[in-house]
């Protein structure tokens, strides 16, 4: 039965337990056609497990997955999957790999494969063994293989992990292209700037989806909490002192930038005073708009005590 609405992926109350850990905890989400959906979460949040369930590699203990209105098993011809690790055959050439995956989907159209080689800059490496490719080209080959059958949906598990910035940009340009072609992309990542580029986002933490929405929606999940920023070199004493204050949710240091997320009852002057007494210097905090990282860290941290972060 094809999808009656424009939801390409529908996930209802999925749970999966591995012995003691609840890897995926009652996840419900829906992704519309043509959307790039980002699944953002720290390592071990359950992102890979969720993607594997969506792709039908592992079975969920509970819940339902519909891709284009069909179960994962039945929907296999309409989606592609690029695993986190290179899963093509290192002992086969680029062309042989592509041909193999195409044939697994019954695709024999050589023109399509040539087009994919060209699209992913692989034509020159056509006859090289896949194992000899660099990390970036391995990823391109994996993408090409996953697209051989021109799927409607593409699942990408951390597609840019360990990839240089330039290749990463190119891959993302391509993801937009694919989305413009009407394909639905489900991408897991832990890069903020990549999350920023997704149309829709879900934050995952310890198996649970803690927030869903567009990147803008996500920033607003902080509600009436205030975000302050100032240029200040890293000083551990400042962090320690701020953590002791009531009403502070997050103290985050990016190089020379200090970011503080606080409840709205915490006064700006109060913060400035605390910092000033430590650094023996007058300091001015600016109130600013929350960014995705603020929201992400606040939502995924253990919310009983303020976290400190330094990058």
């Amino acid at each position: 039965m094809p999808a009656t609405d424009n939801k390409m992926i529908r996930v209802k109350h999925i749970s999966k337990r591995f012995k003691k850990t609840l890897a995926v905890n009652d996840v419900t989400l829906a992704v519309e056609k043509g959307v790039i959906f980002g699944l953002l979460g720290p390592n071990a949040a359950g992102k890979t497990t969720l993607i594997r369930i969506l792709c039908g590699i592992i079975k969920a203990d509970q819940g339902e997955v519909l891709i284009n209105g069909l179960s994962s098993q039945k929907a296999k011809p309409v989606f592609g999957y690029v695993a986190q690790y290179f899963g093509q055959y290192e002992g086969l050439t680029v062309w042989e790999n592509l041909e193999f995956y195409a044939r697994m989907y019954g695709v024999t159209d050589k023109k399509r494969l040539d087009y994919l080689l060209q699209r992913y800059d692989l034509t020159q490496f056509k006859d090289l063994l896949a194992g000899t490719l660099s990390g970036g080209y391995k990823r391109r080959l994996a993408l090409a293989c996953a697209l051989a059958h021109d799927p409607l949906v593409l699942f990408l598990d951390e597609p840019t992990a360990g990839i240089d910035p330039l290749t990463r940009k190119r891959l993302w340009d391509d993801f937009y292209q694919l989305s413009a072609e009407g394909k639905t992309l489900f991408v897991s990542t832990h890069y903020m700037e990549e999350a920023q580029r997704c149309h829709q986002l879900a934050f995952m933490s310890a198996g649970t989806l803690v927030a869903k929405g567009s990147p803008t929606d996500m920033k607003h999940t902080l509600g009436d909490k205030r975000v302050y920023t100032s240029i200040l070199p890293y000083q551990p004493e400042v962090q320690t002192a701020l953590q002791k204050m009531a009403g502070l949710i997050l103290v985050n240091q990016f190089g020379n930038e200090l970011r503080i997320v606080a409840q709205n009852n915490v006064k700006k002057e109060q913060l400035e005073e605390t910092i000033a007494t430590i650094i023996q210097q007058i300091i001015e905090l600016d109130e600013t708009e929350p960014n995705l990282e603020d929201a992400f860290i606040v939502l995924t941290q253990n919310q009983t005590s303020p976290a400190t972060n330094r990058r």
Partner: protein
Amino acid sequence: MIKAIIKKELIQLRRDPRLVALIIIMPLILLTLFAVALKLEPQNVRMAYVDQDRSFFSHMIKTGLWSDAYFDLYAVKNKAQIIEEIRAGHAKAGLYINSNFSYLLTENKQPHIQFFVDGTMPSLTTTMKYHSNSATSDDISSDMYFSDADADNVVIAQKPFIMDTRILFNPEEKETWFFLPGVIGVLIMQIALILTGITVVREREKRTLEQLLVTPMSRTSFIIGKLLPYVIIALLDFYFILLAGWLFFDLPQPSSHGLLFLLALVYVAVMIALGLLISLISSTQQQAMFIAIFIIVPSILLSGFIFPLEAIPDSIRPVSYAIPFTYFVDIIRGLLIKHTHFIDLANAYLALTGFALLFVGMSIIKFRKTL
């Protein structure tokens, strides 16, 4: 530096409890098995006899053969049946004593008795011939001299009777006839267990399995696609070695090419299915290799391929019968060398078919659980 590497290797090994268990348990099992099993001295070798004389003297010969527990005698109806019993594999040796034995003996006319041995296994043939001497030893023959009071004194040097030995099926006792058919089985076992044994586990280790599992392939096509190449390689190997045997080693033609092909099919099926099972239960290629060798070594030693089954004590014999290769050896020697009738090989064929069904069934169950 070396120390650090050694330490790392040991840590890695320790983290693979199954491999550690295999490393510890395998020598224990092999040791017990072989310490008990490989006596190399056959016992209770079945011997079909026909004693038409039924005299005190013929009985002495039989007792002589029986007494050191090497031969286990049982009576059959006639001479032709002795050969058929050996052909069918029920007996390895035979004894024929003619009805005029005691008469000729008392007449000092040196009667002949016939001793038949199965020549398919030259090492066993040799020891059987050696042990048959107990029938003609002095202990027995000393009471068989009869002097004629009227005749001149003769020097008692002549044997009172003569035992003729007839080697059946492989009269020239060619070792190649004995080894070659078994070697085919060993080779197929290696191809099947080692090549097939790593085929699935390699995909798992290299993470290609995950990428494969999202394609719409059915489990059946995965298994068939994985196994068929090895089935064909194994079958080609089967006939390749046979051809070499026929061309260069004078190996006899089988009693039936159809039955030979059936054997090839069933045996290859058993081994490939077993290989697949190994691949499914192993989590690393190392484990798969280890299990494969763990199966191959006892198969070679306990199947009757090198040492006769008669040399394996009763307590270990069930192990021999739990080895598919045992039935292969039995059938292929039967077909090529003894031209055994199908009816006498039917049980062995059935056993192999049973193994094939068992391993295929277990693979399917295991496959459903893991993938």
